[in-house]
């Protein structure tokens, strides 16, 4: 598949503060890409650079093999769904969606047809004459999506579009967005700080932190093979323990040796060891290498979340069975459950 957008060595700073530090990103055609990271990581800035609302200090934006770095937003074949929808309050639903087509001076007949199709796609048939200010958040969201998509952009940019919706509606819209993306076969670039949203919808997830890309990969890979402790912690919950690599496939954690599957580290190299809470098994046998006392048990619906204090670490454990608070338990995990990572700089 061909790259539809490439960002090459993008650097942006505001008031002397670096916001994006050397961003390199290739986005393939028809891909659903999510930029994921905590607030202030530069994900929205990256999106705005693709949209043309911010000029990078250096680096270039390539769109279908053409350099569009200097092109203003109104000359780019991308459209944006803005964070708070940014619908035009003085226009009704129909006119909001028709806006881009009117600017391009399409004949009335074509406009009517295209808008009707779009409203059908986002399930807003019959809302044409409604005032956008009297719509619910989810409906406004759909209008914003229709308004962008009616222009048949090559790429749709979405800036935390579901942020203002409640949980249930957000889940619905996630499925809906994915359906729209697949039926129209266009590239979606989606910005969110919600890791679950990112994992659910994306083909590719780009994890960002402090203006740099931490990891790019499929959701499964990002979850199972996080490249560093930050990614591991941000994508789902994790136990991150200091460890020392003794040799290939052998690591020391909490003073005990454990077999693992990672290799290629230096001998005696300090590393971050990541173990997912759901990969830990608790046993009644308190004679295991690592054992501790159950400090708390919280019911989370599908599973219980427990904190187990061992002599030098507090373990987060997810399990469908919960021991008594205060009981002594053994902590078990297998070689496959241990993920070894280079220590993060800084």
């Amino acid at each position, binding site marked *: 598949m061909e790259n539809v957008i490439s960002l090459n060595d993008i650097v942006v700073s505001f008031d002397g503060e670096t916001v994006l530090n050397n961003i390199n990103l290739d986005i393939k055609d028809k891909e659903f890409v999510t930029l994921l990271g905590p607030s202030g990581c530069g994900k929205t800035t990256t999106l705005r650079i693709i949209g043309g609302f911010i000029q990078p200090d250096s680096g270039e934006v390539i769109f279908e093999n053409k350099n569009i770095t200097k092109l203003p937003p109104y000359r780019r074949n991308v459209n944006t769904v803005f964070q708070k929808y940014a619908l*035009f*309050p003085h226009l009704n639903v129909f006119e909001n969606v028709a806006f881009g087509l009117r600017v*391009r001076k399409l004949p009335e007949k074509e406009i009517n047809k295209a808008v009707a199709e779009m409203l059908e796609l986002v399930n807003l048939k019959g809302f044409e004459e409604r005032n956008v200010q009297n719509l619910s958040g989810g409906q406004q969201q759909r209008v914003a999506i229709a308004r962008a998509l009616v222009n048949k952009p090559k790429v749709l940019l979405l800036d935390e579009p579901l942020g203002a919706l*409640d949980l249930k509606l957000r889940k619905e819209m996630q499925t809906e967005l994915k359906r729209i993306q697949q039926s129209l076969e266009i590239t979606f670039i989606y910005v969110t700080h919600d890791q679950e949203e990112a994992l659910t919808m994306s083909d590719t997830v780009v994890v960002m932190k402090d203006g740099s890309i931490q990891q790019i990969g499929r959701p499964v890979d990002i979850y199972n093979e996080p490249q560093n402790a930050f990614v591991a912690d941000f994508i789902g919950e994790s136990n991150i323990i200091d460890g020392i690599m003794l040799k290939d496939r052998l690591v020391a954690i909490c003073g005990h040796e454990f077999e693992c599957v990672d290799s290629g580290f230096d001998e005696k190299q300090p590393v971050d060891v990541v173990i997912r809470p759901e990969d830990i098994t608790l046993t009644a046998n308190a004679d295991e290498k690592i054992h501790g006392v159950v400090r708390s048990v919280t019911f989370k619906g599908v599973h219980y979340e427990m904190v187990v204090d061992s002599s030098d670490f507090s373990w987060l454990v997810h399990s469908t069975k919960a021991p008594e608070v205060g009981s002594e338990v053994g902590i078990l995990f297998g070689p496959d459950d241990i993920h070894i990572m280079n220590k993060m700089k800084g």
Partner: protein
Amino acid sequence: MKKLSKLYVSLVLLFLYVPIFVMIVFSFNTTKSRSVLSGFTLEWYAKLFENELILKSLGNTIIIAVCASIISTLLGTLAAIGISRMGKFGKATVLGINNIPIINPEIVTGVSLMLLFVFFKARMSMEFGFTTLLIAHITFDVPYVVLNVMPKFRQMTPHIYEAAQDLGCGPFKSFIKVVLPEIMPGIISGFLMAFTFSLDDFVISYFTSGPTSQTLPITIYSMTRRKVSPEINALSTIIFVVVVIVLVVKNIMERRSLNVKKYADDDSAEIIE
């Protein structure tokens, strides 16, 4: 306590409106007496419309008010656009400076403008008249327009200017198509405010008008210096009624745009819940 506060409010209102009420009543009085009511007549209103001096200055006043409010609405709106794009510090500074002419005593503004015009009169054969009066009115109108338009930028739906560009409009077209409709209520109320201020300004006009460009307030003032004719009561009544109508229209319009905003806010509050 509640009764007391009602009484207090009625007293205040009474104090404010009794003089105007008396004036209106006496504008229909048959004699020139200002203490005895002797019958109903529209004679003074009829006479008023035969008085050429009054009609001419009424014409002047309206022309000045229309010109000054249109020009200052344009200038003030452009200024507000610029100010809204400024940084925090710049915005505070410019808005502070904008407020000075409003707080500044009119007499100071009036005298200083007069001195400025005298300075130019000596150098460039500039006469006191329509132009000087117009400049003076624009000067005191602009800050009110800025004050009325500025809040609209703050209340504006975020990112709509960018959204229009995203959908293919150039910067100027984006402004006309989506920003202007949003700030229009502010522009209109700024215009109406400028218009009413121009209409009844006396102090500044007194210092900056020439013999050919007397406005109504100045004419009334010079008429009262000779003898107070009931024509003036009639004239003041008409002005009062016009101003009340303008204010009511302005308030209704503001209420309407507020209601629309309120619905929108209620809606988004629900969503967040």
